[in-house]
């Protein structure tokens, strides 16, 4: 697939130490944050936009697939090299090139870690709001590729709301620099936005100009417990229609709460049907205190069983603990999970959670639901064990039913993780044929040979989705799944 003369040229471009094709090294570039796994033919770790451009020109000439990869922490299979070829490891492009309080922007390379930019910005009194749960490991290039979000999206918006300019290497190696250091522009097509959420299928993002805000130094947190999911959902509506705009409103459903309670036996969250964690921020302590006080007051009126408020960092962390413990708590119940990322109109959250509870009972698998209640973005996680015969089929049924329920309620497939390979088969169910046509036309125009991240975003079996989950690649196909001897 990648002939030796091409490998020689790759070594000439980036240096032999940065072309990886040992048998073990190919394993290291075969996965992401899902269960999927497929080896590339070669992985390359460039350091500059010029090197990326040369690699793409070479790949284009030989029609070799190229899969750009940041930190491979994605949850949709976006960086799995489904057609082999070259995996482009952008982690070495990790310089913060500029951080300008005067212009209110940061210029970063694609491999900069989200938390590193946040720390650098905070040191200058500035703020980069998007906060995906993976911010300690995710790359900003990956955040742009998936239009990553996080709890603070409610008040501050997602990655796309901060991208002001990009350097993008196109499929044939040409370099495009849409946008710039300006905070607004009406100068033709918004090409910058076209590449946000494009998941490496239209070009390789190598540099990003991001907008920064002044740092809100004051924060306050409230944790609210409710006897029913409906009461929690009503409270969300009450808060958001009362003139308040909290930074985040996070929801934990009953299943999630009980899993977290097992994980934190010393300090379990209250054993209720629903928990909300609400955060407010701002520059004035009194204003933030007043806002969180209003949240607490409205919650009590809406029938909250327990209201706890904190402003000191340690106490706020204690209130957030139940939310932060979810991921490890899930991992310990079953070895595998399929994390979904659906979005529904806010008012449909109770209906969606009820539907998921029913689906969980139908397939006999635990499906805790948590997520960003303020913007209707929910993370149902289907927990399973791939080694149990027949379990994967039940996961497939559950996942399909969840997608279909979200679409029926006026929602969509993904709020912040992206489509990748995991959700591609449901794109035809969500998008009208005309919309898919327009997306394909863009893809065709920018990547006529189809070398950029092939197999992602677009459905491959639009007529019959049966078996879509089992069809995703893993290494286990070669050897039977095994248990410890």
């Amino acid at each position: 697939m990648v002939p030796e003369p091409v490998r020689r040229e790759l070594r000439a471009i980036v240096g032999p130490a940065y072309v990886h094709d040992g048998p073990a090294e190919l394993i290291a570039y075969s996965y992401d944050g899902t269960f999927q796994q497929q080896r590339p033919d070669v992985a390359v770790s460039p350091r500059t936009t010029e090197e990326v451009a040369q690699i793409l020109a070479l790949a284009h000439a030989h029609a070799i697939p190229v899969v750009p990869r940041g930190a491979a922490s994605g949850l949709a299979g976006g960086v799995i090299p489904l057609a082999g070829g070259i995996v482009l490891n952008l982690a070495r492009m990790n310089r913060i090139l500029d951080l300008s309080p005067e212009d209110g922007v940061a210029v970063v390379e694609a491999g900069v870690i989200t938390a590193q930019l946040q720390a650098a910005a905070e040191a200058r009194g500035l703020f980069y709001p998007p906060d995906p749960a993976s911010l300690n490991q995710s790359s900003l290039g990956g955040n742009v590729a998936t239009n990553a979000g996080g709890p603070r999206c409610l008040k501050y918006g997602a990655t796309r709301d901060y991208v002001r300019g990009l350097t993008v290497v196109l499929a044939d190696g040409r370099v495009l620099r849409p946008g710039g250091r300006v905070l607004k522009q009406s100068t033709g097509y918004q090409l910058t936005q076209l590449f946000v959420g494009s998941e490496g299928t239209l070009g390789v993002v190598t540099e990003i100009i991001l907008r920064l805000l002044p740092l809100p130094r004051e924060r306050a947190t409230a944790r609210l417990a409710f006897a029913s999911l409906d009461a929690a959902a009503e409270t969300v509506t009450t808060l958001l229609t009362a003139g308040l705009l909290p930074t985040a409103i996070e929801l934990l459903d009953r299943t999630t709460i009980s899993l977290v309670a097992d994980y934190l036996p010393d300090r379990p969250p209250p054993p209720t049907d629903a928990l909300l964690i609400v955060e407010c921020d701002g520059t004035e302590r009194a204003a933030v205190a007043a806002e969180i006080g209003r949240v607490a007051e409205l919650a009590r009126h809406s029938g909250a069983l327990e209201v706890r408020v904190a402003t000191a960092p340690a106490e706020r962390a204690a209130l957030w603990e139940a939310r932060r413990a979810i991921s490890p708590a899930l991992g310990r119940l079953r070895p595998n999970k399929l994390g979904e990322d659906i979005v529904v109109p806010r008012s449909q959250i109770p209906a969606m959670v009820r539907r998921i509870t029913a689906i969980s009972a139908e397939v006999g698998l635990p499906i805790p639901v948590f997520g960003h209640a303020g913007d209707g973005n929910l993370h149902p996680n289907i927990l399973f064990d791939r080694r149990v015969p027949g379990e994967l089929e039940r996961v497939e049924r559950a996942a399909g039913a969840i997608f279909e329920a979200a679409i029926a309620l006026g929602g969509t497939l993904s709020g912040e993780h992206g489509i990748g390979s995991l959700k591609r088969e449901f794109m035809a169910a969500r998008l009208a044929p005309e919309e898919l046509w327009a997306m394909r036309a863009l893809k065709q125009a920018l990547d006529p040979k189809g070398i950029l991240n092939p197999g992602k975003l677009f459905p491959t079996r639009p007529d019959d989705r049966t078996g879509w989950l089992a069809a995703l690649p893993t290494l286990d196909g070669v050897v039977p799944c095994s248990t410890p001897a």
Partner: protein
Amino acid sequence: MSETTLPRVTLPGPPPLHAEYANLLQCIRCGLCLSVCPTYQLTLLEQESPRGRIAMARAVAEGHLAVTPDFVAHEESCLLCEACTAVCPAGVRMEELGVAVRAAIAQQAPPRPRLARLLQWLAFRVVFPDLRRFRRQARLLRWYQRSGLQALARRSGLLKLLGLATIEAYLPPIDAAFVVPRGQVWPARGPERHHTALFAGCVMSTAFAETDRATARVLAANGCRVELPASQGCCGALHAHGGDVAMARELARRNIAAFEASAAETIVVNAAGCGAMLKEYAHLLADDPPWADRARAFVRRVRDFTELLAALGPREPPRRLTGKVTYQDPCHLAHAQRVRAQPRQLLRAVGLELVEMKESDLCCGSAGIYNLTHPTTADQLQARKLAHALATGAEVIVTANPGCLIQLQAGAARRGLPLQVRHIADVLDDAYREEARDGA
């Protein structure tokens, strides 16, 4: 949701990995470990990351990958610093996995050159297991350092010629009077608060014998009776990390037996690497029925020196110290034993001003004998650590592990930096000693 019996299939990969298979499967590939891994932070290459090493080991266990040279290189470049274990949300235990991977490599990889094998055999099987032999070698080393031979060898270029310059530069100056465990006792000063048994260590009791004595003095000054049980020996960390699990188990059994002879409530260790290893004995001997329970009882008694002293509550020292110090977290204390606050608390308690350095818990590159097997990586980590320490403006780097001491002392000396590197027991001894001593 009923429990289902899983099909039991024998793993095709090398047997040492079988016992760690469940550990391997814990990884959810989130990538959080990349943010704290020294080798990943230096290279930014996935094959040099914990997640990569887990995926490669799993592929070997499942038969998708053979023990190839690139597998061996990327697995052996792991420092076993446990920074990843400390942050892993899924509970993967990297040290245990690393030991199994090295054992698998020892079984499967093509044999190393004959001289390397002979040297490893000499070190692992002849010198380290027997403290009498170890002390004899250490004495020889001291003679080499004091006789003028060392100066001559360094000047002559002979060391470079023999390829021994790196090893030689890392030799710690050997203390004159070794600590030889024979059941001797330091009585508690004042009312006795606690009964302890000191694990003297091999490198600690020879090269850093004075630090062992300082440890005993500080404990005694804080009301601990300190005894030094006979027949204790090397902890076996070097063996486990080098793939010789059989010898590591043998050394563990000897130490367990040696300390069973003592009625002390707590087994105190002043070397973070040894302490982490002693706390691993229950896992190491889990499949050895007569010893598994004894190992668990042993592990329950083990505490790092700072862990015990902070828990007891240090007494007000006779002398308060002044000056600015920075603290370097040994990996095997901060990550493996999760002891971070206690050393800092103790330094402040004796009056010192503690200035935190950046990345205080990123491995300094010592990692057992890693600075000898991987000099380039070790050197980069050493430079990074010393630069962070210098930036604090402190005159002294305090740490709690012989490997870190040797690594940072050698680095500071070679670079001519105005930095002292001291073990925390020696620092606290300055505050607790009864009589003032020049140059203490």
